[in-house]
């Protein structure tokens, strides 16, 4: 009896995760790829998010999992990944851009400029810019996901914008 309930729970969790995967996999993977600058790592991290969702739903099938929860998990995963990567490499600490994983039609000046700027920002600043202007969340929603205030998010967006502006200027001067 208990075993049957366990199987039912697993199947129900699996079904809900599949719905989440279908609805959010592209958005989340793109967001994470912008955060970490690498498609392969983004795929692994995206699957990590759904794996966490699966675990959570298996433990509590009635739990409501919002898009905000997925983005928060994605942000935490990406930030941890970047920290680990920095630690492992010790030097240099800047994120490099692996353009080979980006399709030719995605390597527009705007796309490359944005990715270059993101590579120069602290992960929390990148997340503030991407959660708001890329994923469409308000500064208060992004603040909740990042565990900070809306004012801090706006300031991080401003910092990100300044870096992007200087990248665009370098691009013009080249």
């Amino acid at each position: 009896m208990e075993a049957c309930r366990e199987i039912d729970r697993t199947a129900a969790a699996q079904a809900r995760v599949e719905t989440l995967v279908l609805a959010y996999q592209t958005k989340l993977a793109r967001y994470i790829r912008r955060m970490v600058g690498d498609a392969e790592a983004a795929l692994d991290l995206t699957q990590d998010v759904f794996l966490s969702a699966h675990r959570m739903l298996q433990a509590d099938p009635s739990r409501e999992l919002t898009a905000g929860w997925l983005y928060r998990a994605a942000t935490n995963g990406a930030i941890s990944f970047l920290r680990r990567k920095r630690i492992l490499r010790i030097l240099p600490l800047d994120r490099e851009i692996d353009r080979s994983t980006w399709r030719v039609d995605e390597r527009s000046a705007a796309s490359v400029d944005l990715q270059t700027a993101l590579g120069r920002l602290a992960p929390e600043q990148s997340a503030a810019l991407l959660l708001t202007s890329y994923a469409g969340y308000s500064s208060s929603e992004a603040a909740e996901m990042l565990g900070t205030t809306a004012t801090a998010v706006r300031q991080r967006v401003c910092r990100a914008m300044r870096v992007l502006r200087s990248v665009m200027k370098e691009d013009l001067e080249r």
Partner: protein
Amino acid sequence: MKGLSDCEAAASMAGAIAIGEASDAQRDAYRGHLAECGRCVGELGGEREIERVMAVVAQARDNERWEPDLRRALARRGSPRRAWRWGAALGAIAIVAAGAFAMEKKSEPGNGGPAISAREARAIAALGTQTAPRREGQAESLAVGAPIGVTTAFSVSVNSRGVPLRCTITKSSGRSALDAALCRAAMEVHY
């Protein structure tokens, strides 16, 4: 609006303008600040400049074509895509040792000066907080589209240079192909 705190407020307003959250009154206040603060004009830019920069973000977003399908990727690989969390204690110790070695090595020619930057020190210090809680070295894989999720655990030993030496499955998924694939993936990583 003068002084440092006002420039900070202006930066926050510039951020609000960038993400389309600024009210008319806030925009007026921002213009008022720029009229009196040349530094912010140069550093933050006017509303048009903000729009120009943010248009690049919107354009990059609209040009995205990448549509990964996790389910299709799983089917193509014939086995669940790996999605694992690791952090074997040995790996952590080895990396700490490598970090400490790098610090020592760098400080030699520095004539006693601070050879390691604050950022590097922070990064190395962060290792403890990032890796220590994951001493179990657990790997998990979720087969989306398969009837049930699969959980597998493994541990990896690494040498002082972070090169994996041995991978042992501590909790089998019940599928030898998946176990082998996980260990193969774990052995490819430089810890």
